[in-house]
């Protein structure tokens, strides 16, 4: 009965996870992979997941954008001086977030410019024309900031004129937040993901002793090299459209979901369907 209620809770909470919707059956399947003792630990860890549904994500982006635009207007920058930049390939997180924000906030109707961070000529021509303004990067999640910094470095080489830089993001790790602050990119985030909120992170005290050790061991068994996710970040934020690659393997599962079935596989982790 306990397991049924936990599975029901998971299904209600994570039902709109895009790569693989969470149902009572899938939650049960995930849980049944553990022996009795580990099952409670796994549920405890699942309870610490910070899930951002589509509605949450949209709400956060819209709110942060409203605040940012108001601040920039106060600083003398009208919406016509704002360039929203996607930092990744079409179909990945950044363009998806920008698309969502553009439609929900009516950015184009307000005269904002939308550009692809890889369109050097577009960035060069637009910044030359505007001469001053703000560049607003949009993404869904930032971990260490490695990927973001790489994309930003490419985009900014084409910027001319005086432009301030901002990042709109539903959630960002404290590591990435500090790095971006050093670079002078101001972050508007719905959530700063502290190390303390990540039970399997070495600087967290949310879980201690043998319980924590046991979960780490399971993660390393599932994905020996990246058991705790990219750069051992062990993040607990899961976004409705895809989990970051920095979540612990116990939540993400094995590559192709075998032998270990994950509750939050990334799109690329799913087995290819035979036609």
């Amino acid at each position, binding site marked *: 009965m306990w397991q049924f209620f936990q599975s029901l809770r998971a299904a209600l909470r994570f039902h709109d996870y895009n790569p693989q919707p969470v149902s009572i059956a899938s939650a049960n399947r995930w849980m049944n992979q553990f022996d009795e003792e580990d099952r409670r630990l796994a549920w405890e860890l699942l*309870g*610490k997941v*910070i899930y951002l549904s589509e509605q949450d994500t949209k709400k956060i982006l819209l709110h942060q954008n409203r605040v940012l635009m108001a*601040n920039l207007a106060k600083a003398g920058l009208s919406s016509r001086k704002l360039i929203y930049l996607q930092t990744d390939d079409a179909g990945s997180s950044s363009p998806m977030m920008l698309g969502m924000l553009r439609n929900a906030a009516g950015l184009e109707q307000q005269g904002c410019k939308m550009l692809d961070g890889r369109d*050097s*000529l577009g960035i060069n021509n637009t910044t030359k024309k505007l001469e001053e303004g*703000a560049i607003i990067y949009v993404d869904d999640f930032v971990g260490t900031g490695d990927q973001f910094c790489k994309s*930003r470095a490419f985009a900014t080489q084409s910027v001319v004129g005086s432009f301030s830089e901002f990042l709109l993001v539903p959630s960002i790790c404290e590591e990435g937040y500090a790095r971006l602050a050093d*670079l002078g990119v101001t972050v508007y985030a719905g959530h700063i993901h502290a190390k303390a909120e990540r039970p399997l992170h070495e600087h967290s005290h949310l879980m201690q002793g043998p319980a924590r050790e046991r979960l780490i061991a399971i993660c390393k068994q599932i994905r020996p090299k990246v058991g705790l996710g990219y750069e051992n970040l062990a993040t607990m934020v899961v976004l409705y459209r895809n989990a970051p690659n920095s979540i612990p393997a116990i939540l993400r599962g094995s590559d192709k979901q075998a032998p270990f079935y994950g509750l939050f596989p990334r799109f690329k982790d799913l087995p290819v369907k035979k036609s």
Partner: protein
Amino acid sequence: MPTLRPTHPEVPSVVPAGQLRRLSPDDIKPSTNNPRLLFDPPLLAELKKNIAEHGVLVPITVYQPKGQAKFSILDGERRYRCVVDLTNEGHVGKDGRHLRIPANIVEPPSVIAGLLYMFSIHNFRADWELMPTALSLKIVMEQLEVTDNLALSKLTGLSERQIERCKSLLTFPERFQKLSLDPDPTTRIPSNFWIEALPVLDLAMDKAENVKKLGRNPATEKLVEKYRDGKIKSVIHFRRIMEAHDLAEDDAPQQAKVVRRIDQFFLNPKLETRAAFDEFVVEKKRVQSAIGACDTFIAQLRKFKLTYTTDDEERNNLREALRRVRDYCDSLEQALVGSDDPEAKHN
């Protein structure tokens, strides 16, 4: 579930320009370029030592873009980098506090002033991508209405040859320029491709009838396709086409044959550069003869013991002759410079 803690950073009010302030390094936004690639390490070490002893004596120049909390540097990137390094190493000033940087705060610069500053930084960087540099140069040329290479060289610090190369890139339509701005180095067309292809395109558009009918942009596309298919194995191979044509300068039937081959080269996607033009050039023998001629020339001059020349007129005549040799050698040496982009895809 943990509580979501939102951030609402405050946008600072604009600081009046014309102030001299002592800023913490944390108040300053670094340039987006990697300092290790930008600055000569020994010179930077010397400056750092000096700042460690005396602090920053000459104020840097900064401005605050609208809405940004930090100041951007207009002049003084190296002093800033040194202070950041010293602070990270735990260095403190004579007063026992962390180092601060005197800074003149000015109005945000015009596009052109900002660009000229960036040029002054990039000159330290040998591997700076040429296409973005060309785009910046275009703005300088448009806004200042300067097109003379020497004047542009003085303004930007680029060499006249670099300026010439940038200008070559700018002759191509934007859709081709974009191919050299591809973030993926494995699919990016290297800037050198356009520079080496330009004289070939000019020649083909002038003399090859079928290429003329095709039109310049479709002909350019043909070359891009050939490069991507590995039928132009190195951008340097474009020189073989020019060489084949120039060598047949005094031989009309041979030149007509070269032009027909150029037509074929553009229109036949399978025809590879060397396979098409090697028969017209005998490079190895010519280059070996030229190297031999250089050695003979130097040996001959040594034999004449010319340093003992005393007659004024003779000395002047000889100096003038040597200058001519030097100018020719310089231009030849420059023309021989060139390589494929090391990051470009090699077939």
